[in-house]
């Protein structure tokens, strides 16, 4: 005896999944290298492009300061010499810009955010780091994304002082997120118990910015 289930076709057999936009551009061919290390939508860049919202601030090491405040046991403020005397690490990382270029094996040295968290005595209640820059820029990060070796205040790129165009004298480095989170010309780190979307985050860019999930814009 056949049951109703035998004669009613399973809708899943006939429904063809056509993504709303699956357009093939005939004649278009890859010209760029392919690489597992490239997140979606990125291409490999050998140069080091410069993108900033305005003119490059010119900050000398003589007047440079880095302040740490917020939910800390001790507010800190370092001069250039004092900061350079802290323990430093070297890292080699791939970096990914939201404007689609990725650069592999970039070499940086600087002070790990873990070191700063320890020295300042950041409170357990802190959930976010808000980083501020000399030009009025800011960006926001969950604290877990700057701990355990994930982030540093970088002082050298490719074994030399960081050029002003690239954020020197010191910039934040958080390479696992889109590079707008690696605030150039960083001058203040504030540990907070709430999020505080920064410059690009309030202008249509994604609040978190994971390149592997292609989180470029706020609607991604």
């Amino acid at each position, binding site marked *: 005896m056949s049951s109703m289930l035998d004669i009613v076709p399973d809708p899943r057999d006939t429904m063809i999944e056509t993504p709303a936009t699956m357009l093939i*551009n005939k004649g278009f061919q890859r010209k760029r290298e392919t690489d597992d290390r490239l997140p979606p939508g990125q291409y490999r860049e050998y140069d080091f492009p*410069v993108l900033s919202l305005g*003119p490059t601030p010119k900050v000398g090491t003589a007047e440079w300061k880095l302040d740490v405040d917020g939910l800390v046991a001790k507010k800190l403020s370092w001069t250039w010499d004092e900061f350079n005397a802290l323990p430093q690490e070297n890292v080699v990382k791939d970096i990914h810009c939201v404007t689609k270029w990725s650069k592999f094996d970039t070499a940086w040295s600087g002070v790990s955010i873990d070191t700063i968290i320890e020295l300042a005595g950041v409170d357990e209640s802190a959930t976010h780091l808000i980083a501020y820059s000399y030009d009025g820029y800011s960006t926001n990060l969950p604290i877990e994304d700057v701990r355990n070796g994930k982030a540093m205040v970088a002082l050298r790129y490719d074994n030399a002082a960081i050029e002003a165009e690239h954020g020197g004298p010191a910039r934040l480095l958080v390479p696992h997120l889109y590079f707008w989170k690696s605030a150039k010309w960083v001058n203040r780190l504030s540990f907070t118990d709430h999020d505080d979307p920064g*410059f690009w985050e309030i202008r249509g860019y994604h609040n978190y910015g994971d390149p592997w999930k292609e989180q470029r814009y706020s609607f991604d």
Partner: protein
Amino acid sequence: MAKGWRIATLEEASMVAKGIKSLTFSLPDWEPSVPGQHYDIRLTAEDGYQAERSYSVASAPERKGVVEFGIELLENGEVSPYLFSLKPGDQVEMRGPIGGSFIWNTDMPGPLCLVGGGSGMVPLMAMLRHRQEHLADEIKKGRHAVFLASVKDQDHLLYYDELRAISAADPNFTLVITFTQSAPPNWDGFRRRIDHAMLQNVFGGIAGDMPMVYVCGPTPFAENAASNLVEVGFNPHAIRIERFGGGGTVVGPEIKEERS
């Protein structure tokens, strides 16, 4: 809000300068952009490979239903040669408008200063075209606009006829061109790269009127213009920059793709 990738159809294509083509697309769910914004365009090859690039919108938001781009052909580019080969009726995926900083519209106060190098003129054109749509109001407000364009030679000057027409129609608009490689015969204007003296000459008079300044072009051009503008007395916070491309050195097997 422009969320997903949509399929856009090419309506018109024409060369606007040497190596630069204007492409106008219609797209479903069109929404007006703010002048200065861009779209992302994505191409998919038969093997599934995808490439995405950003392109500034050249058209004013008042031109409804379509977006126009000014695309520069890069010799070893991956995307631009394909876009150059498109014919009306062809389709590409795009999404936008995107961008929250390099934007201007007539609601903003102060004089409008535009500094464009080569294809960097594209987003600045969107701003100017938008202003022309509101010309009567702009004149009533007494707002001035000054456009300094830097190009190699006349062949590379985008939208020249249109800019001259705007010049003729708009008493509060000043167009200044500098040719950096070769100037047309009988040219009595600037013949060099932008420098402090030129910016002082062109913008010195309005630097104190709290203008907004938009600089767009290849990175070395933009860096040079911006740092000189700061020296001329512009407030750094009033200078917005869109840099097309990297530092200019070629490393590796291909010429780096510019953002445009």
